[in-house]
């Protein structure tokens, strides 16, 4: 029995090392990164796994337990990191001449004239159509519009393909979008891009020096968008300009622009952007601080204590709001506090009551995954709001609207 185990262990160890050797040889000899990844996968996956399997023959419970843990870990992470590298190699804009990114549109910045520069992301979906329509109606008269369509490359890389290859579907979608905007009397330019949608849109926005990026949202919740990938969430975290997200049921109301603040630095930026938008759109303005009364367990046995605490919280909220309003020069009648509930829904309900045109909120710039884990104020507003929402990322200094 003992000998058989020893032989099995030696065989597994030998097999694992052999796999690793073959894989390394492949990495050394293969010409480009995709082929190398294939060979490297042999080292990071099977080779390590087989060597870990040999732990079963050591007759030591400690080693077997630790090795089992590592086995599961490698089983999960090896394919994930391999995939991440392959995806980056495929999507990266870069020195590789056959990189997936479309050739730059020459002088794109000069294509957009005076006034407000709005970049609309368009993919032909219903929400994108709504976003485009709204952008053309609301922001078209104030300036000019660029429509961007991003093709996300899938499947086999076409090694013979040149970057100039035209995508008939892309052309069709862009023509349709341009026609839709033209009906409102606003001239529009179009941008063709290839690559990761969020990254390309962020880059396009920076190139055009866009004042606003408009995207449609499928209205997925925080968890679903973290799992499935949400372009609007990624944009809200990383764009260099405010991002207007048009939800599936969002309508542009007749009321004021509602800016939500919580006293933090990023919410102040959002309020400034909201003021700037208000100067362009002249819809009226409402600065709102939504606050919660802290629930304190045990206090409820004292009848008046709860009310007293609530009063303290209310006073604090009023002070904070007044401070921000003074700093930004906003008259008192345009400010308001709302109380209770979780903060996002209080803000959303108020916006609905006011028939708000837009809600403007700041974003800490968390990625989709972190936002889902930590809970993102802007994401929950996005999911619930009945009007379009402007998410203001941590703005780089010098934003045109700011």
């Amino acid at each position, binding site marked *: 029995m003992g000998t058989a185990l020893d032989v099995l262990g030696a065989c597994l160890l030998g097999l694992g090392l052999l796999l690793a*050797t073959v894989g*390394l040889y492949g990495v050394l000899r293969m010409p480009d990164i995709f082929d190398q990844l294939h060979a490297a996968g042999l*080292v990071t996956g099977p080779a390590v796994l087989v060597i*870990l399997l040999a732990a079963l023959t050591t007759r*030591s419970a*400690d080693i077997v337990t630790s090795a089992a843990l*590592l086995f599961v870990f490698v089983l999960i992470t090896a394919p994930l*990191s391999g995939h991440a590298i392959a995806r980056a190699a495929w999507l990266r804009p870069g020195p590789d001449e056959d990189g997936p990114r479309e050739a730059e549109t020459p002088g794109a910045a000069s294509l957009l004239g005076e006034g407000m520069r709005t970049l609309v992301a368009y993919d032909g979906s219903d929400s994108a159509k709504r976003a485009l329509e709204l952008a053309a109606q609301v922001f078209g008269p104030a300036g000019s519009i660029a429509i961007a369509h991003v093709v996300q490359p899938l499947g086999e890389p076409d090694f013979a393909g040149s970057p100039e290859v035209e995508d008939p579907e892309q052309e069709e979608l862009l023509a349709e979008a341009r026609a839709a905007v033209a009906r409102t009397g606003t001239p529009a330019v179009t941008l063709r891009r290839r690559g990761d949608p969020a990254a390309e849109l962020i880059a396009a926005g920076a190139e055009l020096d866009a004042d606003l990026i408009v995207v449609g949202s499928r209205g997925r919740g925080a968890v679903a968008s973290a799992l499935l990938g949400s372009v609007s969430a990624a944009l809200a975290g990383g764009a260099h300009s405010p991002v207007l997200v048009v939800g599936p049921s969002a309508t542009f109301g007749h009321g004021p622009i509602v800016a939500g603040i919580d006293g933090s630095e990023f919410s102040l930026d959002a309020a400034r952007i909201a003021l700037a938008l208000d100067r362009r759109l002249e819809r009226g303005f409402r600065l709102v601080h939504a606050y919660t009364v802290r629930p304190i367990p045990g206090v409820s046995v004292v009848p008046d204590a709860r009310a007293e605490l609530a009063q303290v919280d209310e006073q604090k909220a009023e002070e904070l709001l007044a401070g921000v309003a003074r700093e930004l020069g906003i008259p008192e009648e345009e400010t308001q506090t709302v109380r209770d509930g979780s903060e996002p829904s209080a803000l959303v309900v108020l916006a609905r009551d006011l028939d708000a045109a837009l809600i403007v909120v700041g974003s800490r710039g968390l990625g989709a995954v972190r936002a889902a884990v930590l809970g993102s104020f802007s994401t929950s507003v996005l999911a619930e709001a009945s009007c379009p929402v402007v998410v203001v990322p941590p703005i780089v200094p010098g934003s045109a609207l700011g």
Partner: protein
Amino acid sequence: MPEAVAAVGLAWATLLLLAGGVVLLRSRDTLHRVLALDVLVSIVVALLTILSYLRDVSYYVDGALALGLLSFVSTLVAVRHVLRGRPS
């Protein structure tokens, strides 16, 4: 597992580590380096595992687990940097 087998495996894995170093030195750009480091970490994980078989103690495997975790996270971050980190 006989000690001799583990010792030979250890020597073999060390040679692989040297070959991995060559891969790293020959890498042309960031992604190649990320890939090379990923492979190198895998070899070190294998090396530590074999070391724990040889010495008959388990904590080398735990160290390998920590290393693998670090490598996984840094691979993802480096890849993200390649995709999104370009100056604008």
